[in-house]
């Protein structure tokens, strides 16, 4: 496109503000972005959709200067640029609002906004005040700019974040999962603001896995899958297809061609008695929001129950409730016919409930300790690892050597510090540790996350074998493929509720995909 072109063309299509071409980015064995293109036009809201691990966040981090692409080019207003750091991105007019806010709670709104702007050493607040007041009014933020940020609601804080980047002359605004922390009315407010920004010619990118919201607010949708571009819908196509048509097209692009049920494993029609039951359980998440709402489920002996869902819909909290690691606010947890509600990890673990956390380094293992110590961690106060008050170091070491052998954990010795092992080997050790306790119910959250294919298959196969031997397995994963592969039943979690349960025989991938992205709303709409 040359400058000499007549201006008869529709404005938004005129000339891309950002053009990312053939972006490659690899992390170890994982190709996060594989020749990805992204084109942003001024005055347009652009949604980047994709499952977890589709490469959305990587792509955004490249545009915001957090990562450098391995290859590929970025052009801004037609000029090739290298974005070396987030501050360089900001200087180029690309501002990012992350999921986790970066405001200082006990500074005022104006101080937060002005913080880091080039005003010299002394913060000159009056200089920006006029401009800021206008911005605040435009953002439906009728608070005094001298209010401390800690008094603001989450939605208001998010607006302050947006103002903060706009104040630095941002023309391209990146929002990472902006609605995940908002209430529905706050979401509407955010969308009004985004529309306003669009009128002013700002190019807005929202990264999301919520399909309905993407359809609500955006003019253009780019879909990523497995690190690749798999589709783009422009404004004309969205209008032409209509809302339902566009939704259908997107779901097909995201989940289409996925095998309905891989016949790798034998089907298990006959399942045993109910081992564990959640009855209308509710619980809060770490930020005090309702993470689990009135959720009920039954786990039967001999089955793998897969929990499908987009990250952050209550999966982690669900696993922690069953493990006894998170307190419920209402409802009951029944295991083996007895009430175990809020009985705590130690009791549940002794009774026979195992939990493999997704947060390996954060809570799964103790970094400074050896492989052997970590392998005995959860049962250190039981025989044979201890006798009364004293440890049996020999038993601890022998146990570790047995597990290392049995699960082929790659480690120089049982004495090696756990931090020197790769993620896959730590995962194997955690699996081994849990199974060695011989639990009757195994809850595992993202057991194959970040693993190479061979290890992942090993983990999946082991879980299947455990179920076949009469145990109940709850498999929580954001990888739908994995769940489809080995589950006997699948429950779709959305917003802390199980919205639908499928038997293996009646699995319909597209319906599952739609439920994952939109919850019951979409199911009702498509039924109507």
């Amino acid at each position: 496109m040359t400058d000499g072109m007549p201006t008869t063309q529709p404005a938004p299509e005129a000339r891309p503000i950002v053009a990312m071409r053939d972006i490659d980015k690899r992390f170890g064995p994982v190709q996060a972005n594989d020749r990805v293109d992204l084109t942003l036009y001024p005055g347009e809201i652009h949604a980047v959709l994709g499952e977890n691990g589709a490469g959305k966040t990587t792509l955004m981090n490249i545009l915001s200067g957090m990562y450098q692409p391995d290859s590929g080019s970025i052009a801004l207003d037609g000029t090739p640029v290298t974005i070396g750091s987030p501050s360089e991105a900001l200087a180029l007019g690309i501002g990012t609002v992350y999921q986790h806010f970066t405001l200082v709670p006990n500074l005022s709104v104006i101080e937060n906004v002005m913080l880091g702007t080039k005003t010299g050493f002394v913060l000159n607040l009056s200089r920006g005040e006029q401009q800021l007041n206008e911005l605040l009014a435009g953002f439906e933020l009728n608070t005094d700019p001298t209010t401390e940020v800690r008094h603001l609601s989450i939605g208001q804080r998010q607006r302050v974040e947006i103002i903060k980047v706009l104040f630095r002359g941002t023309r391209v605004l990146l929002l990472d999962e902006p609605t995940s922390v908002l209430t529905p009315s706050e979401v509407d407010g955010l969308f009004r603001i985004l529309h306003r920004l669009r009128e002013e010619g700002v190019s807005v990118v929202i990264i999301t896995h919520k399909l309905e919201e993407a359809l609500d607010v955006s003019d253009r949708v780019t879909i990523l899958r497995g690190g690749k571009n798999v589709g783009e819908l422009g404004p004309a196509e969205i209008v032409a297809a209509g809302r339902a048509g566009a939704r259908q097209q997107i779901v097909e692009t995201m989940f289409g061609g996925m095998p309905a049920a891989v016949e790798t494993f034998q089907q298990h029609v006959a399942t045993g008695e109910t081992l564990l039951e959640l009855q209308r359980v509710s619980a809060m998440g770490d930020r005090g929001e309702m993470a689990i709402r009135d959720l009920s489920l039954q786990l039967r002996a001999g089955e793998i129950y897969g929990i499908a869902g987009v990250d952050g819909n209550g999966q982690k909290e669900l696993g922690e409730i069953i493990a006894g690691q998170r307190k419920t606010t209402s409802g009951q947890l029944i295991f083996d016919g007895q009430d175990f509600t809020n009985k705590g990890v130690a009791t549940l673990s002794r009774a026979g409930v195992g939990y493999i956390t997704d947060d390996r380094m954060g809570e799964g293992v103790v970094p400074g300790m050896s492989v052997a110590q970590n392998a005995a961690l959860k049962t250190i106060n039981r025989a044979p690892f201890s006798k009364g008050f004293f440890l049996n170091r020999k038993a601890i070491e022998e146990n570790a050597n047995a597990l290392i052998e049995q699960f082929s954990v790659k480690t120089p010795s049982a004495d090696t510090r756990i931090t020197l092992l790769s993620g896959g080997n730590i995962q194997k050790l955690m699996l081994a540790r849990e199974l060695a306790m011989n639990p009757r119910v195994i809850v595992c959250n993202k057991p194959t996350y970040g693993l190479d294919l061979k290890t992942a298959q090993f983990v999946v196969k082991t879980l299947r074998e455990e179920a076949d031997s009469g145990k109940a397995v709850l498999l929580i994963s954001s990888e739908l493929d994995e769940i489809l592969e080995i589950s006997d039943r699948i429950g779709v979690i959305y917003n802390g509720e199980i919205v639908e349960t499928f038997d293996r025989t009646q699995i319909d991938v597209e319906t599952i995909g739609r439920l994952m992205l939109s919850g019951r709303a979409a199911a009702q709409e498509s039924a109507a």
Partner: protein
Amino acid sequence: MNERARLSGISLLPIASSVMAIVMAFVIGGIFLEANGKDALHAYRILFERGLINGDGLTETFKKMAPMLIVSAGLLIALRASVWNIGIDGQFMVGALLAGVAGAHLSGSVPNPLMWSIAAIAGIAGGLLWAVVPALLMVKFKLNEIITTLLMNYVAVYVTAWLAKGPFKDPDRVAPQTPKIPLEDRLPFIPGTEVHIGLIVGLISVVVVAILFRSTVYGFCLDVVGRNRRAAIHAGFPVGRLAGSALLLSGAFAGLAGANDVLGIQGLFKANWNPGYGFTAFALVYLARLNSLLIIPFAFFFSFLLVGGDSMPRRADVPTYFVEMLEGLMLICFAVAVYLERRWHVISERLRGRPDDRVEPETSSGVESLEGLEASS
């Protein structure tokens, strides 16, 4: 780990950093002395002569070592569980006061060994009692123990002073102090020396703590809480109770140290008497890299510093505070050395190639809090 790896430079590095830090502190301290027109070498010679070589000095050093060992053993329990007990001094004072009162009250009426035991128990109880409030606040209300234990020190100073001036005052004396335990009823000397048996109590304390962490479930659990609290929760440990008990134990040891000084040396508790072992113990335990048995050589070293430092004003015209400055410099140099050591690990790891490909960035940098400060024990 095989024998060769154990002997290679990297596993010796932890102690090397501590030693380097001490040497650097002496060098920097020497520069300070020279800049102020003092003869640094002469001052250091006095320090070593008086603390180490001179016979009386050595005896004094061994006497000082006793409370140092006991206090550090207790502090180690807390720090291994990542509980920052800044209240050692207060716990020490309350323990000393109670032990002094109990000892003086009982001396003459019961056999000495029984009197010492009861006084020691009173001291332990006093130190423990003084840690109860911070421990409860920490466990029940998640209040930061650094603040509460620190503030309890101030309370301890005035409460013990009031008790020594009022209810527990020796009626026969003008000075605000508790009744004196007669010289013949104090702790006996280790045969052939003039060092009272408190030193043995100190050594036993350290060995007990070493066994606690090496061979007991409780010690293991404290280590887990200290290194990764979330893992402790995940594994179902009673984290609050563990951390709280570590603080109480730490206080109990501080109280025992107080009893030890009163029964062995002071014979009574004077209002406002505070030898201030707390800060030294922090420096000591960190330089020993939270390794229990290493406390012994470092306790000897710090005792000699204090004793030698006492002679510096008269002999070398250098104030006693200089030793405190040295301690501070050691901690700063130690922090720098630990930083360099971490960099060294990263560099050497890169040179040798990593044992396996790591996919997640979290695996390579999952190091926090005490990690790296510790030698493997």
